C-alpha cells in the first residue's frame, strides 16, 4: 500500500502527465525554433536530452534556494496568502518529488539510502522519527543519560549514502522519507519524416519533464544556454541568459 506522500506524488505525476503530456516536445520545438534559424543550430535528440537533464536539475535545485528566500520574505511579512502564497506553491512542487522507501539492514549494521534520494526528509523507525545527528556529536549523545537515543527517540548519522541508526538494536521497520531527484527527461522518436525524427511519446524510455508547466520558459532558456555554448553561438547563449534573468526576477 502506498504511503500518503507516495500517493500525493503519484497523483501529482499523473496530473502532470495528463495536463502536460508533451511538455518535452513543446520545449524541444521552442528550442529548435530559436536555435535552428536558417538550419544553423540543429540539436540532435541525444544532445537535447543531455541539455534537458541538466536544465531540469538546475531548476529543481533552484527550487530549494527559492523556497528559502521566500520563507525569509514570509517572515518579513512581504509574502501574501492564498494565490500570493508563494511558499506554499513552492512546497507543492517540492512535495511532488516526495517519496518513501523501506530500508534494510546491511551486514555492516548500516542502512543503504535509495539511489535516487536528493534530500532526506525523515527517517522513521515504526512510528518514531529518528533525529539526524552529526558524526561529531553522536558519541556525546549516546553517552549522555538524558539524550541517549532510545527506541522512542532514535537517532541516526549519515555517511555518504548510508545511515547508522541508534540504538543499534533497531534492525527492521525503518523507512526513509525523502525528496527524490527528478527522472532524466528523454525525448524519444520512432521514425523520420523529411529527415527529421518524429516525436513518439509511446516509447518505453520516454520521460517527460517532471517540473510544472510554468517552468517551460526557464527550461527553454537553460537549454538554449547549453546549446549556445555547444554550437559556439554567443547570441543564443546571451538570449538564454537574458530570458532566464527576466523570468527569475519576476519570480522573485
Amino acid at each position: 500500500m502506498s504511503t500518503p506522500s507516495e500517493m500525493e506524488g503519484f497523483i501529482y505525476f499523473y496530473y502532470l502527465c495528463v495536463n502536460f503530456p508533451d511538455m518535452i516536445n513543446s520545449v524541444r520545438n521552442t528550442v529548435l525554433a530559436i536555435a535552428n534559424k536558417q538550419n544553423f543550430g540543429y540539436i540532435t535528440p541525444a544532445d537535447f536530452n543531455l541539455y534537458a537533464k541538466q536544465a531540469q536539475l538546475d531548476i529543481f535545485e533552484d527550487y530549494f534556494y527559492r523556497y528559502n528566500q521566500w520563507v525569509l520574505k514570509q517572515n518579513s511579512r512581504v509574502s501574501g496568502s492564498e494565490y500570493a502564497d508563494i511558499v506554499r506553491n513552492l512546497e507543492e512542487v517540492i512535495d511532488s518529488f516526495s517519496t518513501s522507501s523501506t530500508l534494510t539492514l546491511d551486514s555492516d549494521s548500516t542502512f543503504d539510502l535509495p539511489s535516487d534520494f536528493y534530500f532526506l526528509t525523515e527517517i522513521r523507525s515504526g512510528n518514531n522519527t529518528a533525529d539526524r545527528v552529526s558524526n561529531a556529536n553522536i558519541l556525546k549523545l549516546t553517552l549522555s543519560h538524558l539524550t541517549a537515543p532510545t527506541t522512542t527517540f532514535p537517532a541516526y548519522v549519515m555517511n555518504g549514502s548510508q545511515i547508522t541508526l541508534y540504538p543499534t538494536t533497531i534492525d527492521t521497520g525503518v523507512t526513509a522519507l525523502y525528496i527524490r531527484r527528478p527522472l532524466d527527461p528523454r525525448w524519444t522518436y520512432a521514425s523520420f519524416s523529411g529527415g527529421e525524427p518524429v516525436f513518439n511519446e509511446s516509447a518505453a524510455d520516454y520521460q517527460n519533464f517532471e517540473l510544472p508547466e510554468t517552468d517551460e520558459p526557464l527550461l527553454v532558456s537553460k537549454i538554449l544556454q547549453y546549446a549556445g555554448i555547444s554550437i559556439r553561438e554567443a547570441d543564443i547563449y546571451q538570449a538564454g541568459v537574458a530570458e532566464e534573468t527576466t523570468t527569475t526576477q519576476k519570480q522573485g
Partner: protein
Amino acid sequence: MAFITGYQYYENSGSSPQDSNWGSYQYVPLADLVRNFELMYVGNDKLVNNVPRYNIIFHAKRAIQELNYDALKETKVVELTVCDNLRVVLPPDYVNWVRISLFKDGTLFPLNENVQVNYAKSYLQDNDCNVLFDEEGDVLTGTSLLDYERITSGLRDMYIGAGKMSGREGYFVDDQWYFSYPIGGRYGLNTETANINPTFKIDKASGVINFSSDMADQIVVIEYVSDGMEGGEDANVSVNKMFEEYVYAYIKYAILNNKFGVQEYVVRRAQKDKSALLRNAKIRLSNIHPGRLLQNMRGQSKWLK
C-alpha cells in the same frame, strides 16, 4: 497519544498488566510533549527554528526533573526490612527523601533524621598512629568503631529515645495520683530530641541509610522523590497535564536563552511565561477546593482544654 476506549482503559484490552492504563489520562507522555513542541513551536515562521530534536528532548527532560524535585508532589514509596547491619541501600531512582518511617503494629512512626554523624570510614593505623597503605598506595580501611557501636547498640546519641521515665506508672487512689519516684524533675527538656522513635542518617556518598540500633529487623517505609526519568525508559516518562504548558514554556525559554542572536526582550518574555506558568500549575495542583476549606474551617469552634 491517541485517546483510548473504556475497554482499553479498564482492562488494557485484555492484556496484562490489566492496570497499565489506570489514571493515565492525568499525564502527557514525553514523546507527545516533544512532538507537540516540534509541531507548534518549531518552524520557519516560529521563534524557534533549526534546532535538533535532541535539544528539545534534553530540555523537556530537564523540565520534568525540576518539576519532580519540588512541584509535582509525586512521591514514591518503598517498604524494606532493615537487617542486622542497620543499613538500607537507597532505591535506584532515589533523588531525595520526603519521610522515612518505622512500620510497626499497623502504625507508621516517622523517624527522626539524626543530625549527628553515625557512620564513618575507618583508616587502619599502626601502633604509632601511622596510616597504613596497600601495595598500590591506597589507604587501608576497615569498619569504624562508630559503625560498630551503632550496630551493637553501644552508640549514644542526643536523641532521648524511650528515656528513663518511659513505662513508669503511678497509682490512682481516691482521685489522686501517687508516684514512687520524683516527678517534674526533667527541666530543660529539649523537645527537638525528645522522641522515642528510632533515628536514621543518610550516607549520600555510599548510597545507604544508616539506622539506629533499635531498627534492627524492623520494617522501614521510605517516601522519596525521583527525577521522573523512569530508569531511562523514555516511553514511560510523563508529566501531569497541569504542567504541560509549563514544559513547553521551559523548553522554549531554554532554547531561546542559549541561541545566538535572539533579542533580549524575546528571552525575557519567554522567561516570564515560564515562571508564570509554573506558579499557575503549582496553584492548580495544590487543589484548593471550597469543600476542603470548609472541612478545615469546621475545626474553628472546637473547644481547647
